[in-house]
């Protein structure tokens, strides 16, 4: 990043060239937590599309499937139709509020642990260390002239990156079609063009964002750090360098032994060396800090080596920092999590979730939609009665064929029949057979005596023959001549 001299000195410049980051390997509590979350996140991502879920013969047996071609979204026992997209909207709202909750409770934990950019960058950095060696070796290699050794290592590293990127894109498309079939089709070259295009684009973005752009995505491209900065308050957990304990810094213990006033920080720069975004946490909270806490691990290790208590760099709220600076003792971490703001976020988040669960469990899996034919609105029949035509759409949202009964109510002496029926033998109900998980469109005819008001209200009531408890009612109007058509 640009230093002050860059902006004010002789060679002032508005452009700061990227300083490449070579983060050092580190081990510790948070590194292990990061390993664990990375493992879980990648496992969820790669394995989910391969989970099978039996829905019977009429629906796909993939547990999680976004079937764009047939406009269905399957998630275990929940199936969502396009008109129920508000459930997806609800999930997105929950994800948003969930991020608010996480941010107000534990700061930028999303950035540090779970964000795909972080997870894949982390993965790529491990590959990098495996091939190029740790920080110093990487720096040497970067500065080395292009020779056989460097080319070999670069090609090896980029190949592994490309391989991972390819599987990242490859796993993504599995969510949108039957995974085993698509895998087969993909390799014999008969999958849809969009599948290859998606894999191509995602391979490229993973390779570029994870391999080369890395922390620049977080610092320059991603809007989320900016939003989070507004969401953080003095009670949010931040990775904090406890300057009141660390300053003034010393280079080693020599000065301390000479009796000078020294802090615990020995300026070993380990916190800078391990930082995946290349910042110096000792400069205070900053947008480049994704709170991955690797500097805590690095610093804790040094502190134990020089015999000082751990936590010179630690998760700490701004409030606690103020207390500790004036000699007090901050609240334990768990206590900072429970406060009105986090509780309110949690209640809102959980209420939306519970409301959606309730709505999903209570929803009817069929729907009747009726459209009155408008040209003509009514037809005079020879026996003096009047006929109205309707186009009805029946959604059978269960994965089995069902027969529905549609009855007319509120129209005396009316009859209903469909294209297979006839006026003479028509009754007050018709039965419509529907395919599993489909919309059935039927034209129906309703006839009623011609003597009556120009517009009379009536209803069509639909019930499944297999379960007559639940009904869907459509309120309609029967038109007769003289209605000022």
């Amino acid at each position, binding site marked *: 990043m640009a230093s002050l001299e860059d902006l004010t000195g002789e060679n*002032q410049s508005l452009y700061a060239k990227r300083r490449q980051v070579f983060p050092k390997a580190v081990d510790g509590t948070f590194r292990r937590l990061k390993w664990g979350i990375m493992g879980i996140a990648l496992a969820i991502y790669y394995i989910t599309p391969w989970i099978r879920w039996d829905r019977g013969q009429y629906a796909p047996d993939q547990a999680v499937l976004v079937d764009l071609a047939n406009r269905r979204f399957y998630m275990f026992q929940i199936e969502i139709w396009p008109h129920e997209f508000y459930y997806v909207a609800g999930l997105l709202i929950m994800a948003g509020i969930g991020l608010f909750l996480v941010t107000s409770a534990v700061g930028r934990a999303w950035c540090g642990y779970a964000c795909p950019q972080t997870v894949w960058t982390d993965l790529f950095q491990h590959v990098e260390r495996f091939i190029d060696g740790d920080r110093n070796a990487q720096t040497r290699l970067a500065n080395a002239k292009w020779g056989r050794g460097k080319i070999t290592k670069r090609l090896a590293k980029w190949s592994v990156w490309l391989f991972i990127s390819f599987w990242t894109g490859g796993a993504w498309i599995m969510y949108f079609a039957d995974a085993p079939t698509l895998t087969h089709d993909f390799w014999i070259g008969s999958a849809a063009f969009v599948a290859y295009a998606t894999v191509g684009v995602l391979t490229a973005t993973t390779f570029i964002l994870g391999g080369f752009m890395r922390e620049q995505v977080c610092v320059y491209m991603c809007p989320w750090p900016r939003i989070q900065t507004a969401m953080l308050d003095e009670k949010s957990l931040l990775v904090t360098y406890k300057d009141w304990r660390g300053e003034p810094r010393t280079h080693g213990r020599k000065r301390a032994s000479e009796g000078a006033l020294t802090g615990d920080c020995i300026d070993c720069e380990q916190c800078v060396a391990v930082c995946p975004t290349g910042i110096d946490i000792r400069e205070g909270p900053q947008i480049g800090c994704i709170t991955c806490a690797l500097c805590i691990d690095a610093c804790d290790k040094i502190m134990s080596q020089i015999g000082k208590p751990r936590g010179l760099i630690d998760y700490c709220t701004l409030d606690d920092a103020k207390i500790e600076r004036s000699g007090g003792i901050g609240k334990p971490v768990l206590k900072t999590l429970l406060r009105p703001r986090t509780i309110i976020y949690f209640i809102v988040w959980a209420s939306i979730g519970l409301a959606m669960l309730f709505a999903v469990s209570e929803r009817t899996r069929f729907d009747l939609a009726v459209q009155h034919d*408008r*040209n*003509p609105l009514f*037809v*005079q*029949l*020879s*026996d*003096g009665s009047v*006929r109205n*035509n309707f186009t009805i759409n029946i959604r059978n949202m269960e994965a089995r064929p069902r027969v529905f009964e549609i009855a007319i109510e509120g129209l005396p002496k009316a009859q209903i029949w469909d*294209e297979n*029926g*006839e*006026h*003479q*033998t028509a009754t007050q109900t018709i039965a419509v057979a529907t395919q599993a998980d489909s919309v059935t469109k039927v*034209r129906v*005819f309703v006839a009623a005596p*011609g003597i009556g008001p120009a517009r009379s209200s009536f209803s069509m009531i639909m019930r499944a023959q297999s379960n007559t408890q639940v009904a869907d009612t459509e309120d309609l109007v029967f038109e007769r001549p003289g209605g000022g058509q």
Partner: protein
Amino acid sequence: MVESKRIDQPTGTETVGHEWDGIEELDTPLPRWWLITFYASIVWALGYVILFPAWPMLSGATQGYLGWTSRGQLAAEMKADADRRAPILRSIAQTPIDQIPQNERLLRAAIEGGNAAFKVHCVQCHGSGGSGTPGYANLNDDDWLWGGDLATIQQTILDGVRQPDHTNTRFSQMPAFEGILSPPEIDDLVAYVRFISRQQKGNAKSVQGAALFSTNCSSCHGGNGQGLREFGAPNLTDKIWLYGGDAETIRTTIRKARFGVMPSWRDRLDPVTIKMLALYIHSKGGGEASPSADNADPKKARLVNGKP
């Protein structure tokens, strides 16, 4: 003006060399990306001029190496669409019209095709919903002058009604009774027709009209006025009137007679379109079942027999 180009110190950029009251202008070079895009556009334009029609000439324009024209593209797209529809149109052509309703896919396609053709050729008289106007039949109802099963409708469309100079056209002619019957007799007939269509109560005039009806009208309209499809003679007892059922209109009809004409479409439309039109009209709600023996549906057979 004196050329005094110099390097501007703070920016390191050369000036254009002009100076107005101490104000100079930087000669900032074009951004590299812009320049590359600009040159790429020129290359693109060269390729475009070679491949596609570009230069206007005295008559027409340069053809372009690819020979592309928008008319050609339209023709190709129309042909592609015709090829797409060809198999189903061929099936419709090959299947007897009575059997098409048994094939859901053919039926839907035919009804859609008929709907499209109806909007071009038929709406001028029958209205966009096919609900007719006085003198032009409503195709939605269950009253048919010449018959409402598929084959009969198809026949009516093929040969028309009272199409001049056409041998197979449906033909009948009601005499104009003005001059044959006296005005009071015509009034009696009007009273009778309005009586049998239950628009007014019987009275002395309608009783006299009954006798006149049986002498003058029953040969076509039937003894009870129930009509006769062989002559396209309407049923006078139902609620549906082609020209109107009020006393004045009935009187005019009897005095002047009616001579409605529908063109024959045999030479104007292809057989598949006519077939699809018949299926569309039949699907509008008033279609009758086919009387043929090979119609397996007993319900529909009964419907035919149930017709007066």
